[in-house]
């Protein structure tokens, strides 16, 4: 279904003043999918998307967006993208409607068409009653929605979102996710960066896990969990018990394991059976839960997303 690539990054490198932020990554984003760059802060996600939307020059390698090279046709590429940057950069001196209209001018959209498009977007994002207000009067969630609306003013082929829900309260996050899911259903290609696993899980058809400027793994969320973890995880608070001895006693029942601090993660062949066996070993701090992307990330890096 998703075949035609709209973004192709090939051995992409970004260095700032001798520091390597992106160390040679390859990926492709296909038309109509929601593609995620998942990783902790400093993984190189923002640097990667800034090169895609022609904001930062490429140090090495190539990116083609909609078949055009970012080094050669930045204006043509930018005309067909929508960008929602990580920092809130709405124009605080303009009203909600003026923010959209002012932006429309940069895409050469005629005033009447711009006004109509802006009104549609305000309706879609439930901001129509705020049209005449200054941006300062909006809540964090509304500002985010307006920033996304602004990114859609030119009807882009691809919408790029850098950490779309960072700093939002849970309710606002769900509101934004809902809108992004709607957009994806309408066929808008989405490229987003996030360090939230639940966000990646909720939204992304496919994703790459980035760490230290490199891509560690890529696939659908389901594939990644199935490949590295399996369907379930047992967490063992081992206290003073030796991880090695626990592992040794259940080796037949697990596909893999990971020790992080005093927690032992076991990836069982059959979760219930492993739980029974661990109960016999008189381990009490046990929990059985479904495997997640966080487990994949932990296994690949030895660290949680929050601790890097």
């Amino acid at each position, binding site marked *: 279904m998703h075949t035609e690539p709209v973004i192709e990054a090939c051995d992409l490198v970004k260095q700032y003043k001798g520091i390597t932020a992106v160390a040679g990554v390859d990926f492709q984003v296909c038309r109509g999918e929601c593609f995620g760059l998942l990783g902790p802060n400093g993984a190189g996600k923002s640097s990667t998307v800034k090169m895609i939307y022609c904001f*930062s020059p490429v140090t090495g390698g190539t990116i083609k967006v909609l078949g055009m090279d970012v080094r050669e046709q930045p204006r043509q590429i*930018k005309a067909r*993208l929508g960008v929602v940057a990580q920092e809130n*950069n*709405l124009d605080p001196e303009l009203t909600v409607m003026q923010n959209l209209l*002012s932006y429309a*001018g*940069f*895409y050469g959209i005629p005033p009447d068409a711009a006004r109509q498009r802006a009104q549609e977007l305000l309706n879609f994002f439930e901001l129509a009653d705020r049209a005449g207000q200054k941006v300062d009067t909006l809540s964090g969630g509304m500002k985010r929605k307006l920033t996304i609306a602004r990114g859609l003013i030119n009807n882009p082929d691809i919408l790029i979102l850098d950490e779309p829900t960072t700093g939002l309260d849970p309710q606002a996050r769900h509101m934004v996710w809902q809108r992004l899911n709607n957009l994806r259903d309408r066929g808008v290609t989405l490229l987003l960066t996030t360090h939230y696993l639940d966000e990646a899980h909720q939204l992304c058809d496919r994703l790459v896990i980035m760490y230290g400027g490199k891509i560690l793994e890529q696939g659908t969320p389901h594939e990644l969990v199935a490949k590295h973890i399996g369907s379930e995880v047992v967490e063992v608070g081992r206290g003073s018990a030796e991880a090695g001895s626990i592992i040794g006693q259940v080796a037949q029942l697990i596909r893999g394991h990971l020790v992080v601090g005093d927690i032992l993660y076991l990836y069982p062949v059959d979760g219930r059976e492993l739980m029974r066996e661990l109960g016999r070993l008189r381990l009490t701090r046990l929990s059985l839960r479904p495997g997640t992307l966080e487990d994949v990330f932990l296994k690949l890096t030895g660290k949680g997303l929050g601790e890097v």
Partner: protein
Amino acid sequence: MFRLVDIAPPLVWQVFRRNFTVYRRTWMVSMSFNFIEPLLYLAAMGIGLGGYVSSMEGMPYLNFLAPGLTVSSAMFAAAYECTYGSYVRMEYQKIYDAIIATPASAGDVVLGDMLWGSFKSLLYGSVILLVILVLGLVQSPWALLVPPVLWLAGLTFAAMSMAWIGLVPNIDSFNYYFSLIVTPLFLLSGIFFPLTGLAAPVLAIAWFSPLYHAVQVVRSLVNGNVSPALWGDVLWLAVATLVLVPLALRLMHKLLVK
């Protein structure tokens, strides 16, 4: 340094238009404040000091002083706009970043902001020109040519100020810009007294002041005292602008495109 920067005029215009949209809401307040300072100088120096000075270069002191204040007003307008104004848009409001994510380039944004600064010079200087016209201090219809000169000088100051941001991108540095560059220019460019009496080295330094050349032209136009020699001053301003605008664009490009 003078390599051509990527510029798309329609998008430069959009940047200008964005600033204009914002300004339309506050122009009354900002313009009235801009009024006050030159008028205070005109009253304090022109009338106060003028009471002790019988004539300056063969004219009443008020007539000598007034044209220069239209130009200094223009200079301050561009200097404030393209330091504090532009820096706040770039660094705190992130408006430059937002615009560069559209088809506009960094050059479009910076050039648009400089043209906006020069427009404010034109506007604020012309308002003072109107005031001195009402006060009966404009002697000649040649004064109709003052606004284009104010605009050209304004673009020079806008580019100079933007280049300063490119060199020292820090809001505290603008204090130094004003006390080390703008205020000395204001005092030593022949607005308050003719430079002819000064020592040769001081004169040589004054020659490098854009304000000096603009004041020469504007005073001559206002007083109807025109001569072909004024083309020299206009040429000086034109050349300075042609050097400073690309310089500012290059320096800002380095700052914005990382």
